[in-house]
């Protein structure tokens, strides 16, 4: 069987993109190769969550998606959260609350949080714990990330009101 590259067309952070990929490529590796370093990899088995991105708005672990399966889809990475120099409220809340330590799990957590708040503007602590349970963290004990998400949700609710 001849190994050929195919064209993967998708939207990344709202921009139309075309990447040349192999059938064998994982979406996580393609995104990193194309410069989206906020997509981390920590296990390649979908357990750590550091490769979390939003696919058509839903958090997924993109190390478990073949790149070509994303054909025509929309991916959101952490690079799309800030607008220019202005950080997203969730990013600011994480810094306010000391929720960032080594930072390796942070992009994944931020995206999981963004997806949650979009669905549930007023999330309870239990809902936040649930939403973050696919993002492992060895630094924070999850305590301050949860507070940050609660804070961000409140602020975002006020801003849309």
């Amino acid at each position, binding site marked *: 069987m001849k190994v050929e590259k195919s064209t993967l067309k998708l939207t990344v952070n709202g921009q139309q993109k075309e990447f040349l990929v192999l*059938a064998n490529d994982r979406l996580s590796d393609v995104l990193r190769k194309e410069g989206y370093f906020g997509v981390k990899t920590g296990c390649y088995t*979908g357990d750590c*969550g550091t490769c979390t991105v939003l*696919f058509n708005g839903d958090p997924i672990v993109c190390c*478990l*998606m073949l790149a070509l*399966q994303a054909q025509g889809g929309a991916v959101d990475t952490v690079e799309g959260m800030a607008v220019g120099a202005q950080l997203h409220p969730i990013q600011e809340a994480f810094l306010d609350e000391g929720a960032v330590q080594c930072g390796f799990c942070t992009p994944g957590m931020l995206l999981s949080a963004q997806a949650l708040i979009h669905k549930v503007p007023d999330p309870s602590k239990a809902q936040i714990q649930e939403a973050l*349970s696919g993002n492992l963290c060895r630094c924070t004990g999850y305590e301050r990330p949860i507070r940050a998400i609660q804070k961000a949700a409140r602020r975002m609710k006020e801003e849309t009101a």
Partner: protein
Amino acid sequence: MAVKAFFNPTSVEEAVDMMASQTGEGCYVAGGTDLLCEKEWPEFVVNVRDLLNHVALDGDEFVIGASATVSQIEYWQELTQADDGLMHGCAKAFASRQIRNMATLGGNLASAVPSADFAPPLLVLEAGCVVQGKEGARALPLDAFFSGPHRSVLEKDLLVEVRFPKPAAGTKACFLKIGRTPGDIAVVNVAVLLVLEGQTVKKARIALGAVAPTPIRVYQAETFLEDKPASEENFQQAAELAQQAASPISDQRGSHAYRSQMCMALTRRALRQCVGRDE
């Protein structure tokens, strides 16, 4: 082995044709959450992620497409209301949000792991599956689907959908799972479904996972319970029958002694929760 070719069919027939016509080792891929964890990848894949993600109530029958994600099932309110939250409870205990957004019902069943979380609920819902191969489509009951650990009747056929009758009004059901952490692969999982008339059990269905070469129905416990009062003693007895029906192994996740003990404890607990008794 690396995947050399990626096929993207737009219909079930096309998918089955692609699988049949290629030489070499191929696999269907939907969520990818099992396949991409394998050490060895197939030579080609046929992508069915965007096919077969239908969920519907078709008359008196629930239909779930094989590519419906665990999240879809979790959020399907019509089903949750009809099955007393059985499938919803199973979905909620599954892995993580990210995995739930990708993993499919079909993938969970096709993996044929004894701990497949959706097997016990679908067994007590008396589900059947529709499978399509080169020779066309066929239907079979779910309890004829699994043939051993990691083995099902599928071979290279495509699991299309799962169907089960809408449970009678007032049906009580409960899914419980025990793992090392929340969302872990089951050390033991159990599904129980009861139809009561007053305090009498008119219909009982009990299924266990992760404690035998395949997920199993516990017919002896079901037969024992039917037409009996829903009492503590009878639940205890049924739970012990469930324990006896199981033949768990010891592995990384738990010893056979602990699994055996949990068959009994979880079955009893699930039965009690069906009738609203606090544990």
